């Protein structure tokens, strides 16, 4: 009996210690305002993956060489973009996860937005 108690205590200590050792600090302090420039050329979005942190106020400034109807999944933000017409997608990054950005007109996926938890 005493041996099992010791074993459990040792295991809890090891796992607890490892957790605090491995866990990184939370990402970059406070939520920020972020404006990210995104360009779409020939159906390719660059950057293909946009990464922000939970709580950030995000503005995506999108330019494209073709007319498109942008749609950001999960947040359901939409915007029209085309040659000479930039789109601003604004949202508060309060949902964490991976969300697709697609062109409604061609039903093609352009890239993803990744909102990392705090």
């Amino acid at each position, binding site marked *: 009996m005493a*041996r*099992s108690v010791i*074993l*459990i205590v040792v*295991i809890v200590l*090891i*796992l607890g210690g*490892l*957790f605090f050792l*491995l*866990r*990184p600090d939370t990402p970059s302090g406070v939520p920020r305002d972020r404006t990210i420039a995104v360009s779409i050329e020939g159906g390719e979005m660059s950057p293909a993956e946009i990464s922000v942190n*939970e709580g950030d106020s995000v503005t995506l400034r999108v330019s494209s060489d073709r007319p498109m109807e942008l*749609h950001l*999944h*999960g947040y*359901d933000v939409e915007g029209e973009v085309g040659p000479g017409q930039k789109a601003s997608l604004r949202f508060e990054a*309060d*949902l*964490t*996860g*991976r*969300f*697709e950005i*697609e062109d*409604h007109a061609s*039903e*093609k*996926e352009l890239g993803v937005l*990744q*909102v*990392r*938890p*705090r």
Partner: protein
Amino acid sequence: MHASRVAAALTLSFLLAGARPALAHGFGPTYDIPIPLWLYLYGAAAAVVLSFLPLALFSRKERDSPNRYPRLDLFRIPSLRKVLSSRLLTGGLRLLSVALFLVVVIAGLVGLQSGFNFAPTFVWIIWWVGFSLFSAFVGNLWPLVNPWRVLFDWAEGLVRRLGYRDGLELDEPYPEALGIWPAVGFYLTFVWIENVFSGSYVPRNIALFALGYSLITLYGMAFFGKETWLRRGDAFSVFFGLLGRFAPTEVRVKNPDVCLGCDGCGDDAGCVNCYECFASAAPEERELNLRPPAVGLGLPEKVTPGGAAFVIVVLAGVTFDGLLETPLWLEIVRLTPVTQTLGTILLPLLFFGIYLGFVELSRILGGGGEGGFWRFAAAYAFSLVPIAIAYQVAHYYTYLLVQGQMIVSLVSDPLGWGWNLFGTADFEPRYGIVGAGFVWYSQVALIVAGHVIAVYLAHSISLRLLRDPGRALRSQLPMLVLMVLYTMTSLWILAQPIVE
């Protein structure tokens, strides 16, 4: 139509259009972020450290009978008994199941093909993912609601009423050497359709597959006898039965005489989860028990040809599903002659080879044992099931929560014809029910918990087979390594960047 409904329909049609050929998977997009590297390492370390817990705590306790676990018979509570065994409930569920089956087939054949359709969401998300998890965490209802069984029963009843006493079953002798290999074959085919076949989300294909499989199953039941075929040839009966062994509920027949001559029950385990005996037993002989989860996987099992293979194919199938979305797999397909289809066969073979190797090692270290190699191989296979179930939940629960909501609007408009039968057609799925941080921790916790249960099960199985605590403990070293490998594979997949 509402904007989100358009979006959802577009997502589906976009899958159909094959815009992402690599993702032949039958589902919509996932919203999960891969678990971060540090958490992956932590989960792996936790699995290794915690492996010693069940071994150390139970090493000197030899369990004389695998049947000795706490049980609570729900039928002993009169009001519960009345509700649970009422014909209104059981008959209602069977009717509902057949109705849903027919809706799937009709929606698949005549419903809208590109977009809003009941069939894909119901079959792939609600039934395949949802019902699997229900079977594992609540109990196996499949023998009750299996639409093919219900349809067969109805047809049989009708034929008998018309005066044909012999009914529909020809009861041709089943070639015993075949074992449950037919179910293994159908399960593999199903895994291929789910993961590789690019038209798996097309409603018409779903309807045609369902009809084709109906023909095979109904014919099998008529030719070899209903129970004989369902136990050996129906992949879904075998699959849900396997998951039901994990479940915290069981049906049991008190009087062993009922089971004499039944080939579905275990040898010395008593009559547990044998629905044939349960159905034929007198009401006072029946028990519906609550039990600790996963103990059903440690019960003695009849060794049937293909039995261990089926379990390993299930383990590999679950992993294959996740592996397909990893960069490593893309590289394998790009650089080697291995294709998706070949992978459906090769991965189970690889798993099976590794598994048998570790079983042999375990037998050597444990000093042999009665019953021969295949008895060990059949018994230990069950101990790995909790790891697969844990991975399946971790991989799919957010899916079920988010994509599963589609069913709310689909029941009102199953064919995509713009109906609104129940007034829910414009229901908007809610995203972000669980945050990504919670998803990470819960995924790792689930997988580590599954691993610990697996280690415990393998150890109690070894005690049963070897009947000597010292030898049992030694025999567990290779099994432990095998389980750590399988658990780390599961964690590794969850930590991989998603590629499409």
